[in-house]
């Protein structure tokens, strides 16, 4: 068993997730099941994984949004995907300081609500609504 496998299994075990990690597209992916993003972040902090970013996707009509969270663990790129029906998810900012700016960027670009945090007003479009930079705007 390689070190990588051991490390990944240790994360799954701590989370109580039995689904195996899947390596695809240059990253190891874990299906979160019923685990929340905060539970996963806490375990990532425990194993000293380095937070990298969140990538937001607008899914085809009516399917909502998807957020891909990325961490680095000793050179391995880890990914956990969350599908959002209501375009809101718990914020991890208070337990992962590094997520501050990217949560704000996703909020401004996609209108995603990260529950449990506040945002500063938009600098360049003061008074404007968030979520118009990258979201498909129906005329």
């Amino acid at each position, binding site marked *: 068993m390689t070190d990588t496998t051991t490390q990944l299994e240790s994360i799954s075990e701590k989370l109580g997730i039995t689904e195996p990690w899947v390596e*695809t*597209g*240059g*990253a190891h992916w874990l299906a979160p099941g019923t685990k929340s993003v905060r539970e996963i972040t806490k375990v990532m902090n425990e194993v*000293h994984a*380095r*937070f*990298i*970013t969140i*990538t*937001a*996707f607008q899914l085809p009509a009516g399917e909502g949004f998807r957020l*891909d969270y*990325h961490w*680095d663990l*000793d*050179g*391995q*790129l880890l*990914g956990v995907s969350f599908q959002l029906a209501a375009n809101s998810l718990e914020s991890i900012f208070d337990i992962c*300081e*590094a997520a*501050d*700016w*990217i949560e704000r960027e996703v909020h401004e670009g996609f209108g995603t609500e990260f529950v449990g945090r506040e945002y500063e007003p938009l*600098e*360049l479009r003061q008074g404007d609504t968030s979520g118009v*930079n*990258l979201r498909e705007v129906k005329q």
Partner: protein
Amino acid sequence: MSYKIPMGPFHPGLEEPYKLDMICNGETVQDVKLHVGFNFRGIEHLAETRNYIQVIALMERVCGICSNVHTFTLCRAMEELTGLTPPPRAQYIRVIVAELERLHSHILWAGVAAKLMGFKTMFMTSFEIREKIMEVLQAISGNRVNYAMNRIGGVNRDIEDPQAVLKMVEALELEMAHTVIPIFTTSSTAASRCAGVGVLTKEKAISCAVVGPVARASGLPQDTRRSAPYAAYGELEFDVPVQTGGDVRARLLVRALEIMESCKIIRQALTKLPPGEIHTPGERFVFTTGTAAKRIEGPRGEVLYSVSWKAGSKNPARIHVRTPTFAIMPSVRWMMQGARLADAPLIQASIDPCYSCTDR
């Protein structure tokens, strides 16, 4: 009594537009609020309107200094989605160009930092050397800023005479070893202006998840070239310089030592450059549906591209870029707390910020 001093978004002490709102008590900075977004060009959105050829040229323009980093990472992600593997010669050429870009970026930064230290002679010397590095890049690619070297499955241009490039690099290495490196590592001007200034502790560096030379100057030995080797890095020997001071001087030392390591890498790569094709033969490839995430170690630190594609489409469905400055910039708040107001420009410059990259 505390008072607020705004700096920017357009200010002689800043290289690019961004804004610092500094809360000061006398000459001491108590806290800072950072504002970015003045360079927002909507590039991630534009990328969705470009095909797989056009998108490479577009993403090369995310940054005017580390342009190659962006196409390199993007092409790696697109290669993951198409199943193409660049031939060995292309992998070596990618490393050579990436390291030349690191040299040019670090020397440019050295010049900017020297200017902010009040060390104008060093500024002129650094920019003279930078010109020579750009000449090497021009000799290889035909371009000085946007090199247009990367394509899906390899590179666009060969290094036909590696020995000639090697001679240019060796001359550069000698010049840097006699000027920039000793001055930045031993001069009392640099030491007195930078030591103990803008400290980012190791704990805070971990908490903020900073990357690149800033992380390495705070005692974190992280470097994607070493931890997740790509292209030809796994076949080349190099050290990852780490300092523990966490101050501007430590960042200066890390970059100075990295200049020498980059020269070492370029020399090895040019000597070992394998024969063969510079890109995958044939022009036919097919994108599969899915997302690929790839990283490389740019001059300022780790760059990540998350690229999504739908099979049958010529355009990407989504491209997200996490640039190093985006990861590092929030930590400036902690570097500034307790600093002298006069040191603010040097501290912000010490992270080698790129707001074009940050804002995209």
